[in-house]
């Protein structure tokens, strides 16, 4: 039986092949983030890469929860759903399961995604529904005006933790890896090129893509990531990880990461003791390595890894759901409702 949705799909396939520019993805709504907010860069990079994806904008859905980041859908000229706190991942799951033909994106934050929405995020990741999750991490609650978040550092002084936070810090990448994610990345709002490349890879990945974006809240947590994003420090504090390449960093590219057992350590490439051949070589398909890389976060003696931690293939939930439906139809034939009503034990009264 042809459904109403089939007619919409037909309309969509009749529409002209898109030739967009980034402007086509801007809406008529005033952007209401604070001046200087890191969200502007993420919005701009998302709008910039969208034309390259080759997906008609009416086939794209952005879903968000609550928080500063969650205003994002209002500014994307696609279908959008600004929902309730923490539940964007669950709503997006429903969208994608009902309509695997759509390109579905979730925009969330460290509070929305890791705190109130932590449970849904775990289950989205393990089910591997083909949704792209962008988690804007600014290590603070912005919209509620500055309380500590799950990613705030230990000891953080905020309005709700005047004596310092005693809540141990969550690592989004480790959380995702622990939830059996198939694509886990970290990127920086202040590095547009890197951000663009990661967004494209996330879009291409079949299954849930989890992208943590370090984003500066210049009002409530200004400079939280400056050591990783500013010119004078970032070369020595960040290691950009790339598949198949050794982990080298430093202004002179004279330092590397070596594995000592399972423990990463910084070695010098300058004193002749170690060469690039001794270093850890990144492999996106190695789940064990992804655990080690994610765990490098918050270790002050190690540089902060940025890039794609993990990218592996596993059947998506919606593909498996479609397969079960097709198998059932092959076995039992397309369901006939009148037949169903009369199936099993029935009797006549005349």
């Amino acid at each position, binding site marked *: *039986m042809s*459904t*109403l*949705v089939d007619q*919409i*799909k037909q*309309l*969509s396939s009749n*529409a002209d092949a898109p030739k967009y520019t980034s402007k086509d993805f801007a*809406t008529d*709504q005033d952007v209401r983030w604070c001046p200087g907010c890191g969200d502007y860069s993420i919005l701009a990079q998302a709008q910039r890469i969208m034309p390259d994806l080759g997906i008609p904008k*009416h*086939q*794209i859905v952005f*879903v968000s929860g*609550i928080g500063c980041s969650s205003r994002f*859908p*209002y500014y994307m*000229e*696609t*279908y*959008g*759903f*600004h*929902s*309730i706190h923490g*539940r964007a991942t*669950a*709503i997006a*799951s*429903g*969208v*994608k*399961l*009902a*309509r695997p*033909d759509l390109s579905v994106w979730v925009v969330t934050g460290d509070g929305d995604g890791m705190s109130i929405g932590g*449970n*849904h995020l775990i289950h989205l990741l393990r089910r591997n529904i083909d949704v792209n999750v962008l988690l804007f991490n600014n290590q603070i609650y912005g919209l509620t005006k500055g309380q500590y978040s799950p990613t705030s550092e230990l000891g953080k002084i905020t309005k709700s933790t005047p004596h310092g936070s005693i809540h141990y810090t969550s690592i989004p990448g480790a959380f995702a890896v622990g939830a059996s994610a198939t694509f886990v990345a970290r990127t920086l709002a202040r590095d547009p090129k890197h951000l663009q490349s990661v967004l494209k890879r996330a879009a291409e990945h079949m299954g849930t893509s989890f992208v943590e974006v370090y984003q500066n809240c210049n009002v409530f947590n200004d400079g939280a990531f400056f050591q990783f994003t500013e010119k004078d420090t970032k070369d020595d504090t960040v290691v950009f990880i790339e598949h198949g390449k050794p982990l080298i960093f430093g202004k002179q590219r004279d330092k590397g990461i070596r594995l000592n057992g399972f423990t990463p350590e910084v070695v010098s490439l300058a004193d002749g003791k170690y060469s690039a051949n001794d270093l850890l070589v990144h492999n996106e398909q190695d789940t064990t390595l992804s655990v080690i890389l994610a765990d490098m976060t918050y270790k002050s003696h190690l540089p902060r890894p940025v890039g794609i931690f993990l990218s592996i293939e596993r059947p998506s939930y919606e593909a498996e*759901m479609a397969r*079960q*439906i097709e*198998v*059932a*139809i092959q*076995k039992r*034939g397309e*369901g006939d*409702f*009148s037949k*169903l*009503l*009369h199936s*099993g*034990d*029935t*009797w*006549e*009264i*005349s």
Partner: protein
Amino acid sequence: MSAKHTHNIDEVTIRFAGDSGDGMQLTGTQFTNTTAILGNDLSTLPDYPAEIRAPQGTLFGVSGFQIHFGSTEIHTPGDTCDVLVAMNAAALKVNLHSLIDGGSIIVNTDGFNDKNLKLSGYEANPLRDGSLEKYRVYEVDITKLTTAALQDLNLSSKFVDRSKNFFALGMMYWMYNRPLEPTIAWLGEKFGNKPDIREANIRVLKAGWNFGETTEIFKARYEVAPAKLKPGTYRNITGNQATAWGLMAAAHQAKLDLFLGSYPITPASEILHELSYYKHFRVKTFQAEDEIAGITSAIGASFAGALGTTTTSGPGVALKTEALGLAVMVELPLVVVNVQRGGPSTGLPTKTEQADLLQALYGRNGEAPIPVVAAATPSDCFAAAFEASRIALKYMTPVICLTDGYLGNGSEPWLIPDMNSLPDIAPTFHTNPDNFLPYERDELTLSRPWAIPGTPGLEHRIGGLEKQHRTGNINYEPANHEFMIKMRAEKIERIANDIPLAEVEGDPKGTLLVVGWGGTYGAIKSAVMRHRAAGHSVSQLHLKHLNPFPKNLGEVLSQFKAILVPEINNGQLVKVLRSKYLVPAIGLNKIQGLPFRSVEIELKIEEMLKNY
């Protein structure tokens, strides 16, 4: 041929009771299905503990299944039972109060050893101390007879013990002259790949039958002729199955895919199980990580163009309330089925209650009106789920469909509807991009367009923030907020133009009107019919739409001097009727996790009529 005398009777109520591991629910269900096929009208009441396998022999581990069947119309599972099958002392102790004086007790004597008696708090063996004098007691060592029937098969004693319920079933089939074939066919299907287990159970079933036939214990057997129901094709159906099918029928009629996001919870899980089976109908079921994901995934599916539904009970509804508010705000179709159970909190998970009405009507933050429909009988769950879906799709709104544990687990014969006779459901997706505004409203229904992702030129954003009229843009203006609150309320109110008028059963004018809703229908009907047969001025009105109410409800209520509202709660509908229509309605409230016995309502009516 049996030399025993066969009595013809109009109706009888049997209660099977035993340990929760004794298979009483299975026994009751088999007896029910066979009885349905014979053409009797019937009504059932499963009554089981929350514990899966409570400690053997204890009072709290007793599981019961009551069936009331007859050659006449049957409206309730029976106030009392005529026959009690008790597999042990605890089952006797827990259920004896529901047996009529002079009723029959069939006991498994093996369940009355010292340990059983002690666990059930009997100081002396009731089979020996004369305390059962006013009943007819049939003592059968079911355990021993089952063991004997299986002795050459080398089966474990655990298995033998588990199959003794089939012996009891066989005896009752003999006593009420029911065929064994339907159960034998069921065993064949159930244990198709385990022929030894199938054969053993069939052998025990037949042994039970033969015991009835040959032993001198039973002096008589009974014949219950088929009921004279409306002509047509019937099947037996439980409320939860009917709910599942009602949702499927609505999606089918609307040419939409059905999506169910749900989290397991007693007593609603069977709807999830049932729908999960129908993959070949392209039904998509999603066992979510929690109640919130159950409803929010359904909202996502509706946004994307499916009929999004979620099923739950008790505390599960509480968890869904924030998302219900979102569905009100974004004005998307959604059906929420609440199979009500005893509350508050975890409450009585396996027992029935009607205490979520006020929650359904008002239980959200902000002004968030939601249509509410309620099923009256197990098979009526089909119509209720279908109607909830119809309203949700036509008016772009979440709808709450109330059933309850009694309806969900209960069963009755159902006149199978002709698909062509079901009400029309014809939603359309908006496709025209010219001057598209997401919150432009239909003049008649006030519903907004359903513009789903994938439609060229209709890209737009929705969300939980207040909307500007027509454009749907975020808007915090004072006048707009008030306007939108009233607009959303009026949209729901206008549904009253699209639902049947309240129809009184009995005289439309008189002394007393008994107003009910939900699963109390049968008990009220039986009570009212008895009074009417005695010439009393009593009528019945059963509400299926609880928000909005039928347009003529106030007028109907005004035609009676007194109004009685029986409910399985502490007085909820009565509160609403009194506040909305300023009528002196009186509540009759029972909050014991059990349905009304019709006699309870009958006595209350009698008491009220004395004043007129």
